[in-house]
């Protein structure tokens, strides 16, 4: 399978990429690691006329201590996240979840910015960044703006990014001392989650679900119950509240609701909440 014809341009800088996007509008797509976009292009489900390759922008690959939060460059690969000592110390949930994305070959290419900008509700990292209450930094022709993760995912493969914006950085709070867990249920090791749960407990609990709707969704009812001192079992009963899980070959909506409750209970238990 070969993608449909496209014109290729290598971005020399973020501003250069923004310029190319501004010039070509909806016709252009950004290429980071390519592990979401290229499979779609090979199936001709995506046929961009212009591909702007960000691959040479190595200065967008970093994990930095920024005081109260950790800043992750948009082009940081899953492989680098899963081996980051800084994340291990301050945001272990992100480090752990990155190691569950795809397989080693995928993690050698795929990037956090690409995964978030793709906006697939079945991907692991969008839910993780949502659970952490992260902030995304986008640069466009008018300069830089920040977008709360809660406002970023708008629909199936749709995000708040404008067609001429580049996702340059992801900021996640340090969770030092808080409990955390990532639970993922799938049939085969390398597959997308049928359902997944990312959880941070402690004073400011955050719980988000993978593949329980057209976007990654925050399990607000679980968070409220946790804040009210509920047990893991009681809090997890609310995991599927307000969700609209998809139906596919892997699972019916009912089965997904069941999985969400079970996986949330397991995640909360692992994260230190009393059963």
């Amino acid at each position, binding site marked *: 399978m*070969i993608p449909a*014809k496209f014109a290729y341009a290598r971005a020399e800088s973020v501003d250069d990429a923004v310029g190319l996007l501004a010039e070509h509008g909806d016709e252009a797509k950004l290429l980071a690691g390519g592990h979401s976009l*290229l499979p779609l292009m*090979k199936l001709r489900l995506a046929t961009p006329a212009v591909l702007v390759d960000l691959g040479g922008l190595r200065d967008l690959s970093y994990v930095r201590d920024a005081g109260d939060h950790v800043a992750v460059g948009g082009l940081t690969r899953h492989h680098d996240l899963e081996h980051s000592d800084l994340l291990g110390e301050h945001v272990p949930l992100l480090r752990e979840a990155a190691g569950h994305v795809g*397989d*080693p*070959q995928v993690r*050698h*290419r795929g990037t956090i910015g690409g995964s978030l900008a793709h906006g697939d509700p079945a991907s692991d990292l969008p839910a993780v960044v949502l659970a952490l209450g992260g902030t995304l930094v986008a640069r466009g022709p008018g300069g830089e703006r920040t977008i709360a993760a809660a406002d970023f995912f708008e629909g199936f493969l749709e995000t708040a990014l404008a067609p001429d914006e580049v996702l340059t950085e992801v900021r996640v709070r340090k969770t030092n001392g808080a409990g955390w867990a990532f639970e993922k249920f799938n049939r085969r090791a390398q597959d997308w989650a049928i359902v997944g749960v990312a959880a941070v407990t402690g004073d400011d609990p955050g719980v988000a679900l993978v593949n329980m709707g057209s976007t990654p969704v925050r399990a607000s009812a679980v968070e409220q119950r946790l804040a009210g001192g509920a047990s893991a079992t009681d809090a997890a009963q609310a995991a599927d509240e307000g969700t609209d899980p998809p139906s596919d070959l892997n699972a019916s909506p009912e089965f997904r609701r069941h999985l969400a409750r079970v996986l949330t209970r397991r995640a909360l238990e692992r994260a230190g909440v009393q059963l």
Partner: protein
Amino acid sequence: MPRESDNVSVSIVVNGESTANQVEARTLLVHYLREVVGLTGTNIGCDTTSCGACTVLLDGESVKSCTVLAAQADGHAVTTIEGLADGDTFHPMQEAFREHHGLQCGYCTPGMVMAAVSLAQEGGKLTEEQVRIGLEGNLCRCTGYHNIVKAVIAGSEAMSGASK
């Protein structure tokens, strides 16, 4: 002149030798290796980033070459299964696959060996669990994996002993 173009010039070091070609931008790395450079050891299996048969090393790390554009490998170094042996002497991982009969039909083997080499380079001497998790991106429909796992453990041991 517009910046973007349907064709791109790529320079890729393949198994230590420089290659430079003008290709269509949509050329996948696996097609570049097989059809432009003429190295057909890298197999195309599923063509959907699942099976790992097309695994090669890009700057020393395993990637699925059906999901990388040749243009993305421009300026980088690729190692294929043809680049592992030293003359008539197998690479330790190849030797381990032969010794432990880590293959049956052989179709997944080039990708399996390349993924294993990458895994061993990152992890040193590997445990059975590390191998089973680390090869999650490579499918074999014949062996049931047991001999592959044995081979990769032995190969990683040999690689740790030999200079890398």
